[in-house]
């Protein structure tokens, strides 16, 4: 019978206000908030894992405090953090590369015009 029930509505009636003049920024902020929420959900899940493990006699939280990270672990973690920051700031990387290559919007339009001709 479950599949006969209509899913709940997801949109509220009433025009949604815009808060920013820059187009797209409202959507962007909502995405940031959703992602912040998911980060928070993950943190809660880790917390839950530790507590469930503790109930079963496995002190994950204590072990996490006392473990000594060996060289491999230190390198793997630092590489992951740098890669994450690299992904986070990919648009700045692109901007710097464009400056270096002196790429401009005008230049891009020129390429389109040139290629159309031959």
């Amino acid at each position: 019978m479950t599949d006969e029930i209509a899913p709940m509505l997801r949109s509220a009636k009433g025009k949604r206000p815009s808060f920013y003049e820059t187009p797209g920024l409202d959507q962007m902020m909502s995405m940031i908030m959703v992602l912040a929420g998911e980060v928070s959900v993950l943190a809660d899940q880790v917390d839950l894992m530790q507590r469930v493990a503790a109930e079963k006699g496995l002190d994950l939280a204590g072990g996490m405090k006392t473990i000594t990270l060996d060289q491999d672990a230190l390198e793997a973690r630092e590489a992951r953090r740098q890669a994450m920051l690299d992904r986070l700031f990919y648009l700045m990387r692109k901007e710097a590369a464009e400056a270096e290559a002196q790429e401009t919007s005008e230049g891009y339009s020129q390429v389109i015009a040139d290629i159309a001709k031959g």
Partner: protein
Amino acid sequence: MLNTFQQADHGVLPEATPEEAARQEFVKSLKHFIQQGILPGLGPVYRTRAAERFEKEAGRAPADRHDIRKAMVPDTYFQHYAAVNRISQELLWDSVIDSIDREGDALIERTAAATAANAGELRIAEGFEVPRYVSSLDIHCMPGGYVGRPGHDDLRLGALYDRGVFLYAMGYTGPDNDDMGRSVCHYIKARLKGFSPKRILDLGCTVGHSTLPYKELFPEAEVWGVDVGGPMVRFAHARAGAMGLDVNFAQMNAEKVDFPDGHFDLVVSHILLHETSGKAMPQIFRECHRLLAPGGYMIHADLPPFDPMDPFTQFILDNETYYNNEPFWGAMRELDQVKLARDAGFPAETIRFDTAPMAVMMFAQSEAAGYSAEASESVAERDFVAGEFAPGGGWEVLIAQKQD
């Protein structure tokens, strides 16, 4: 203060997986942060750069809440505040709908069993006409609103409201969302000594959050909750059954309640009036007068009028009008409620505004989950801050007595 307030399960609350629960908790935390961490900055931002910019452009200082709005809307700080506030509201409903959709008809089956346990009546009107002030927007941005839409009007909307309101209020109204009703009951016992109502009517009761304390504190009374939302009263009836209380619910409009003259000796409402309209509100006051027996009381717990507030406070409060689908929120606060009561026939000397102290400390005393003494105290003892949920200390009530 760390807000750890938890809603009590009563058997017909949507069940959340750990992941869904974490998403719901996040929204509650986000709302708390907006109030504690972002809202306080609006004052300084206004007093410094926003007011200055307005003055430079308009050649005069902002005079009222409308001017302040014009000054603040272009300011980035305000934009972030208002945007995140709105987003938190949208995420709130979404996080609960996830649970309801996943549960499917298990929730509906649970409510059917619970409603059978409530010996009180449930009246659903055929061809009921929903007033425009409820049907034209989904109030609080809750998808489907109080009445739903064709094919989407089952009582799960009541379950959505029940869980959603707890998160919206961040638990300030107690593990059963009933602080307003509970506070008014205590007010009656403390201030209207000797008054023991036999028939009680709660107008605009939604899922009966505030209705049930009346049955609990006046167990001999016949208690009715009415609301225009069919899904709300159907869920209210089940919820009362799940909580072991025999309370009657009916789909009715507070403007024209289907009971005879003088039938009740207490007519109450909780945060109803600001969701009606300029025409409906005076009519509701007249209807209260008609429904009351001589000597009976009318008590409305709602928003205090704008009148004694400074324009900046008014501006903050009025954001709900613009950003949370609350079309009557601002206009209601400009009405002279004492005059409305007088015009409805209540003797002038019986009409007054008063404060019903919040019952939140009782939740801490009863050791409800998450209601630490410290957190409860900080909710109960705060000063009124515009933009925070609920005034500090107590609820504003308008009270009037019908001529004996």
